[in-house]
């Protein structure tokens, strides 16, 4: 039975076409995936269904929910539909919950709004709801505040909030993008169970084909506000009737770049380093509890190698990266670079520092928004002993900007004029302009659309050969690790639990944690990939 029917839905915001005659049908109890790149109109489709549209928007067409046309419905009527019949789960559990209210109060809010019940009765329903999403109310009491919960728990609270009124349709907008793989697997499992148990329909908006493959019965692929392809998930990706579907599928499989020649010479040697953060003494909190962030970590990176580093959020990956950069003082241990000691008693010399640079995850906070690109890229010149003159500088700038496949006149622009992928290229340019030996890529591809990822992967490979670079590739994405790294480190709670050749470890992980990590990663069925390979 059809629950939601969208016919000829078009949306204009300030005279700009966002959605172009979208048609789709969602049945009861069905998980419907909506797939597309960022900016293609996925989220606006969700906003149109709930009619939570920005100002000056013009919506035409029909949206039927149980034979009620939502496009024509008045705002007051919509208020009773939202939450009761349609509810939403957002991407960022950090900002979707009010930090000043207990989770119990936030979950019960819609109950009290839509039903005429007492607070005590509402709290009972809330406790049931928490139980259903796998939060034991005895451990996670409804009196807790969002900051007392982890990201995964917060997302569970969001789901409890969305399900509390037993809606007919849940719209989940990138519900697991901000979570790490293991939590993602748990949340996806939970969503699937809920849909089956309560016969709820789920509109799952995501850019991750792996998630769609795992969950969605049906899928619609969107590009520039148009639906390109719709149908059963499996048929869509095996018939590959549309060029764009094929492109999305092939983009989603990270291109395996050939491992470059690795010399036997060790570039970076990390010898049993440890680090414990000392918390600031606080008279109010009393005693300090210091948990070590890095415990006895040793590994090495050879010249020309790309070493992967995998671990959940909070396992100490970033602290390790900062330590190698020489920005963190260590408690014990030693880091050698190219034979020179990165000393941690004194600050490392500029000479050694100039051999290591970093590229960050978030392409939007990596640059000072008030500086032009040429100033951003030339910042590392500061590390050089010999100051370059103007001509040499501009020559190097031009060289580097073409090496990362951007144009010369981009040097005069500001960061906000670039897209995410272009910004990561700029970040790479900044990192390699003084010809370092080692570049730390801290989740550098995680924030990018799949279509851009492969380009950057290839670029990384090219640059590595051209400038003789080694990479420390930090990521939580097993597929990416597989595509680019030669060896991989698996890290958990500040310790290294596994180290070895990437292919070997991913094929037969010896540690149970590695196994669970690999199993948790949503992957695209092999049969789809085969079809793709067979045709092209």
């Amino acid at each position, binding site marked *: 039975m059809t629950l939601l029917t969208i016919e000829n839905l078009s949306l204009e915001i300030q005279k700009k076409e966002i959605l172009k005659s979208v048609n789709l049908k969602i049945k009861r109890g069905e998980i419907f995936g909506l797939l597309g790149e960022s900016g293609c109109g996925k989220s606006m489709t969700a906003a149109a269904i709930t009619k939570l549209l920005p100002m000056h928007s013009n919506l035409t067409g029909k949206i039927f929910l149980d034979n009620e046309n939502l496009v024509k419905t008045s705002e007051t009527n919509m208020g009773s539909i939202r939450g009761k019949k349609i509810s939403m789960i957002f991407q960022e559990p950090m900002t979707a919950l009010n930090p000043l209210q207990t989770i119990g109060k936030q979950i019960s809010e819609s109950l009290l709004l839509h039903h005429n019940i007492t607070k005590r009765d509402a709290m009972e329903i809330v406790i049931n709801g928490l139980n259903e999403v796998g939060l034991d109310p005895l451990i996670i009491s409804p009196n807790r505040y969002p900051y007392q919960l982890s990201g995964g728990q917060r997302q569970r609270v969001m789901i409890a909030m969305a399900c509390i009124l037993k809606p007919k349709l849940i719209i989940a907008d990138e519900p697991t993008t901000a979570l790490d793989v293991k939590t993602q697997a748990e949340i996806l499992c939970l969503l699937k169970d809920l849909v089956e148990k309560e016969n709820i329909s789920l509109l799952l908006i995501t850019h991750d084909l792996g998630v769609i493959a795992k969950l969605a019965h049906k899928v619609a692929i969107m590009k520039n506000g148009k639906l390109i392809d719709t149908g059963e998930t499996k048929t869509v990706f095996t018939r590959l009737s549309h060029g764009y579907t094929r492109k999305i599928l092939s983009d989603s499989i990270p291109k395996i770049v050939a491992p470059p020649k690795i010399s036997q010479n060790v570039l970076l040697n990390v010898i049993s380093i440890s680090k414990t953060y000392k918390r600031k003494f606080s008279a109010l909190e009393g005693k300090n509890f210091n948990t070590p962030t890095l415990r006895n970590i040793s590994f090495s990176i050879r010249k020309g190698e790309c070493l992967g580093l995998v671990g959940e959020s909070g396992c100490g990956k970033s602290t390790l990266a900062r330590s190698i950069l020489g*920005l963190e003082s260590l408690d014990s241990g030693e880091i050698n670079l190219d034979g020179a000691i990165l000393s941690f008693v004194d600050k490392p010399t500029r000479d050694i520092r100039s051999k*290591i640079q970093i590229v960050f995850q978030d392409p939007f906070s990596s640059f000072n928004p008030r500086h032009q690109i040429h100033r951003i890229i030339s910042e590392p010149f*500061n*590390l050089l002993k010999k100051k370059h003159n103007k001509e040499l500088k501009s020559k190097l700038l031009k060289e580097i900007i073409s090496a990362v496949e951007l144009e010369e006149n981009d040097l005069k622009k500001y960061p906000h*004029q670039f897209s995410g992928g272009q910004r990561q290229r700029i970040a790479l340019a900044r990192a390699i302009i003084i010809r370092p030996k080692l570049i730390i890529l801290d989740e550098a591809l995680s924030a990018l659309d799949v279509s851009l990822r492969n380009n950057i992967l290839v670029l990384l490979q090219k640059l590595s050969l051209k400038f003789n670079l080694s990479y420390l590739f930090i990521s939580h994405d097993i597929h990416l690790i597989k595509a680019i790294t030669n060896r991989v480190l698996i890290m958990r709670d500040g310790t290294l639990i596994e180290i070895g050749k990437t292919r070997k470890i991913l094929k037969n992980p010896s540690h149970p944690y590695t196994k669970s990590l690999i199993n948790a990663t949503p992957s695209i069925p092999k049969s789809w990939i085969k079809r793709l390979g067979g045709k092209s």
Partner: protein
Amino acid sequence: MNNSKFITNFTQLPPNLYIGLIIAGFVFAVGLISIIWTPHDITVLNIQEKLKPPGNKLYFFGTDHFGRDILSMLMIGAKTSLLVASCATFLGIILGVPLGLLAASRSEDLVDDIIMRGNDLIFAFPAIIIAILITAILGPSIENTIIAIGIFNIPVFARITRGAALPIFTLDFIMAARACGKNSFQICSEHVLPNIASILIVQTTIQISLGILAESGLSYVGLGTQPPMASWGRMLADSQTMISFAPHLALAPGIAIIVTVLSINILGDGLRDYLDPKLKKNLS
């Protein structure tokens, strides 16, 4: 997206920026003119012309009980007020902003605590009472008024700088700059300050208008500007006993204070609208 950082089309400027600029600019110009020219010399007493009502041919705003020209005194008062208020604000900025930046960059250790608790200590006392105490100890003069008011601007700027700088320090480009070997001073001046400048500029206008009020208050109790220099607060104090038969003596400086403070506040609002990137997006 617009290429340039600033709105070039002047019609898009917020109207309160215009209004504030025009009125505050006028007061500033009057203060400047008073340095080289005033209609009458206010150090000369002319008892025969005393308490002339406004609208007089010679004395446009009338005269006070010593026969001094009110217009001339207002002009010199404008100069005094703006001079004291801006010097005191400047004092607050040059000491407060570096302190705030230092606190923000060392937010993990004791330096932050020492600076911020020191701030709290100054904040704990009512500003005007301590200013009275300081001028009472150091003796009343323009310089001491500036110091007394300026001391209270330091924690204001330190706190607002720290608050605005803390989120900037967590951004990746700060880490990138550190990876490039930049020291704290370079990071603050190149990366942090430009990104919090708009907040500081708006706070500057607020502090200037508060400074004008504080200066008037100090002069009113006789601890600010000393005669024969004129000041709006002093004029108010002098007019107190004669308010029943010569109300213009109190009205003139009172209105001057209101107009000046209001115009600077409007200017601050306008600047905030202009510099706030969120609002700017809507405009373009």
